[in-house]
């Protein structure tokens, strides 16, 4: 199977990647346009909701939360795979990550930005959102540090800013390349400023390596903590279906899961629109697919743990809720969720699908549909069948306003992401160089010892 050529000239790498900043395929503009349109829809809905009050979202008592919180978790989850690829695999010296971690990292950043929006959209009084910030004030009123929501805010802020820094630091050498190769216009100025006068001197490289490593080390526990804390919003509450010990690992697994699926989707799109066939090779795709499959199985295991805890644990409320999920108003979505997220990934177990682009695209989209439903099925049913039977409510549906804003969030994410890929190199040039350099060294050694046949392409 075709992989990145080891004898590819470094200069070639530069030119190829830099091309992506210039002329993508038509499809790029189509996607960008649709995305912007969706954002428009969402803005409209939000303005309406802002003026009328949240009631237009068709919330009620007890349905206090709806799609907003579900989407919030969804987007937070999406962000995790970026860290997985860039940080964890970096530490594990899995060099195949090098061509794709840049856009994964960008995905992290932008999905976090999207998630952040939902925190605001969800509030009854957005205009008072600064109350949640710990700013010193004369009355000495501070946010309530006991609230999981505040932990969220803190965790997300940390995660977002760290990811942005990580993304930026890792991009400096490439920005220098852009600076050196683009000779006019605002881009020239932009790259000149951003590259901070990088010249690839030994001193710069030395500190660069150490810094990159350190931040990677920080990001891993951070990513884990972020989604554990998000799960804390539910696990640390008292409600049936939420108050579950296994939630933190369950959420983290789910996060990595949807993230990987999203990577596959974006991988395929970028590969096409920016003509990256040379670098985003099928062998890489295969590895991501396998990774996704593994995580999918972990997630399935955890979700079954959750079900069996509800079923066999002697809590009538949890058990009732589980039955309601499977048979009640939400049953169709619940079953679809289980199908998409637990059954569909099985296709990834087959070699021929692991590199079949149309199949992978479809599967990855289904997986994320499943994961979105999963978040919704965590939030909504608990409101529909909480503790108190008198206030159970089985016919509340999110209004078009809610759906509009959720759709818009996808547009918003895609818009940011697409613009980023057009402005910045979405394949890390210097690391691809490192990759082919080290591989060629390895091959040379093998040739020297004449064991090329034995090793084959096993190196990757």
């Amino acid at each position, binding site marked *: 199977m075709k992989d990145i050529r080891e004898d590819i000239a470094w200069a070639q790498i530069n030119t190829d990647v830099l091309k992506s900043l210039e002329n993508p395929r038509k499809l790029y503009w189509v996607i960008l346009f649709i995305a912007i349109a969706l954002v428009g829809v969402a803005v409209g809905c939000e303005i309406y909701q802002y003026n009328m009050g949240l009631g237009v979202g068709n919330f009620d008592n007890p349905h206090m939360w709806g799609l907003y919180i579900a989407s919030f978790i969804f987007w937070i989850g999406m962000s995790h795979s970026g860290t997985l690829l860039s940080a964890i695999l970096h530490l594990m010296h899995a060099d195949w990550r090098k061509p794709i971690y840049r856009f994964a990292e960008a995905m992290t950043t932008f999905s976090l930005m999207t998630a952040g929006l939902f925190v605001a959209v969800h509030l009854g009084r957005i205009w008072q959102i600064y109350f949640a910030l710990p700013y010193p004030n004369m009355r000495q009123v501070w946010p309530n540090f006991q609230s999981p929501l505040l932990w969220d805010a803190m965790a997300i802020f940390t995660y977002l800013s760290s990811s942005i820094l990580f993304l930026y630091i890792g991009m400096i050498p490439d920005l220098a390349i852009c600076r050196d190769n683009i000779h006019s216009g605002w881009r020239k100025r932009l790259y000149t400023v951003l590259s901070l006068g990088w010249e690839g001197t030994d001193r710069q490289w030395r500190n660069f390596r150490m810094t990159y490593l350190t931040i990677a080390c920080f990001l891993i526990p951070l990513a884990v903590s972020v989604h554990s804390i998000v799960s804390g919003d539910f696990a640390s509450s008292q409600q049936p279906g939420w108050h579950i010990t296994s939630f933190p690992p369950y959420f983290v697994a789910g996060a990595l899961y949807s993230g990987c699926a999203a990577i596959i989707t974006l991988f395929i799109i970028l590969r096409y629109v920016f003509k990256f066939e040379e670098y985003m090779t099928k062998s890489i795709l295969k590895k991501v697919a396998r990774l996704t499959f593994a995580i999918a199985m972990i997630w399935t295991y955890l979700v079954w743990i959750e079900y069996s805890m509800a079923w066999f644990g002697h809590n*009538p409320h949890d058990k*009732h809720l589980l039955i309601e999920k499977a048979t009640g108003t939400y049953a169709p979505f619940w079953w679809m969720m289980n199908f998409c997220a637990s059954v569909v990934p099985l296709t990834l177990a087959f070699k021929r699908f692991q590199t079949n682009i149309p199949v992978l695209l479809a599967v990855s989209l289904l997986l994320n549909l499943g994961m979105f439903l999963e978040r919704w099925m965590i939030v909504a049913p608990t409101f529909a069948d909480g*503790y*108190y*039977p*008198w*206030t*159970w*409510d*089985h*016919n509340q549906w999110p209004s078009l306003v809610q759906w509009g804003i959720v759709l818009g969030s996808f547009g918003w994410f895609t818009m940011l992401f697409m613009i980023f890929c057009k402005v910045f190199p979405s394949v890390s040039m210097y690391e691809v160089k490192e990759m082919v350099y080290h591989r060629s060294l390895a091959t040379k050694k093998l040739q020297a010892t004449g064991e090329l046949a034995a090793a084959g392409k096993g190196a990757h």
Partner: protein
Amino acid sequence: MMNSEFDRRDFLKVLGWGGTAVALTGCGNGMVESGKETVVSYVEATDYMIPSVSVYFNSTCAQCDAGCSITGRIREGRVLKLEGNPKSAINRGKTCGLGQAGVQNHYNPDRIRAPLLRTGNTGEAITWEKAYALIDEKLKGVSGNQVAFLTGGMSGHTKVLLGNYMDSLGSKNHFVYEAIGPAVVRAANMKSYGVEMPRFNIDKARVVLSFGADFLGAWVSPVNFSQQYAQFRKGADGHQRGVLVQVESKMTITGANADRWLVVRPGTEGILALGIINVLNKLGVKVSGDIAAAVKAYDKDRVSKDTGVSAEQINKLATLLTERTPSLVLAGTAAEGYAHGSQNAAAINLLNHVLGNVGKTVEAAEVVPFPQMAPVTGNTVALQTLNDGLAAGKYKVLFSYGPNPVFTAPGAMKFKDNMAKADFKVVFAQYLDETALQADLVLPLDSPLEDWGTQVPEYMAGGAQINIQQPLMEKLHAETRGMGDILLTLIKQRRAAEYKPFDDYYGYLRAAVLQNKAALGGAHQPDNDIFWNETLSKGIIKFDGAKQASFSVNAGATGLNLPEPAEIDAQYPFHLIPHVNANLRDGRNTNQPWLQESPDPLTTIVWDSWIEIHPKKAAELGIQEGDIVEVTGKNGSLKVQAYLFPGIHPDAVSIPLGRGHDAMGRYAKGYGVNPFQILDVVYDKQTGELALHETRVKISKTGERVIVVKDEGPVGGNQEGQKIVPEMFTDKVNLSKEI
């Protein structure tokens, strides 16, 4: 009370100004902003109005006729809330939801603001002078018996004034109409006790056996009964907890609180009563010969067959009644609403005699020593007479004050059309209700919280008392008048000389009270002003040691013959039970949003009407909750949402009264249906009262379905096995020990 040292009227003026000021500043209703009004500063506020400090004045609740005394909380000249007046023997500081909503009757945005004269189909606002002149003119050349005056139950000085006015017109046609008053029971009581409305000592009873008397909801004097009920339940003075058994075909809120709710076939309440007497007799309770003879036929098997109450239940009940004395038996709305209503009531009252409750738990109430002020109670006979008269074109001029006959009269009586036959129709009203819309001249009334008056409650709970009604704040609308003032002006048109000294109703009232100072307990107080202000601040005039009504006990069973239970009509298989909702009553309070949004105690439905069907029956008919069903009777049909309700006899369906207005403003119009319109016109054989429960209907699905708007969740009041409202039995717990 801090208000006894100054003249109330200056005070009210002050209040009024303050009121305007705060209404505008405090509530930001835009008048100030739009420059229509200016803010009045507090710089020159009087001592009586301290910003942010409430003052309290006593008055009388006019939401129903029970005559609860209320204390209004007034701040910056606005009445904010009504609480019960603890001094009143009737409600002892308590209020019902209906009473609480009194302020919404007062502040209601749909009140009429000026006299309206009909020109074609529109009402044109005119001045009061013009209105009075018009009435005067219309009355010229009209003989007294061509004038009819329709009112609801009345008492006190307004009643006196009205009486005098009718005299001045030489008219005897004062029709007193109550759509849902207990008229038949009154008649029956008159027969068996010699008084229309005795005092019921629920708190003294150990067992209360109520035949459809919804005394916790809408019957006679609910707030008073509720308090007695609480006592009765606690088992006052060391007794064990009282037992409540409710016999009816459709569960009322009282039935919902009963220890045993006995569902009977509609109309067989009397039979059950006689059956119980029969069993009691067997159990050794002495009864006079004629009674024994009368009940001989009613052995428990037959009764059980007729009523559907198991023989075993009847036995248990009878035993209980013998074991625990005194008991109290009540005949209520459900029992009286049939062609044999009087018979039912008589039979039930007989039970009281047999059990020897008369004189113990059924007593004669004290009476106010001013017979001319005593209440006149309404009935539906009056309506019929009036209706016939109108139909025959006997009446040229019709005055209407209080009831809303166009809404509450059965459609089959064609009251609306007959009313049109009168040349000149004057309606005194707060709202443009259905009747007012038919009038030629509509005169806007003050709200009860703006008006003066006196009231003598029909049901005297403690000693005799006269309730004072006084304004709690300045008028909201300049062009409204109190009924007293209107009557005074009208009567001046006839007898100017006699009424010259009274320049308004307030003056009349004050004079009238001071005249009888001694009799009203002011003997010790030389100063009239002080006495007057004290009286007002009390809000109640009590007559200690007033004598009781003469109580003639008639325990005979003569003329007692109950019909066989009605067979099921093949064409119209269901009894339609028009249910009296404690909040909406006959529909005069439907335009008070709090009441519209306060859930019905049994179905928790709001803002709409519904028809109650027993789940078993509904299953037969394939009806589910929310199905729109068509209810068809001999006199028309209506479409209403179905609610499956276990607390109703399978042969009966029930629709609440009070909703279904097509007038009366934004909060009432267009919500629900009006079952009055499809009632069969059947009369009680003895009293000639309308028998509200005699209507037969059939129901059919229309295919439409709605989501029933109710507070109850999808599991319909199921606790899902949780400990939310657990229950104990009296063999396990002793309440009399409790605090």
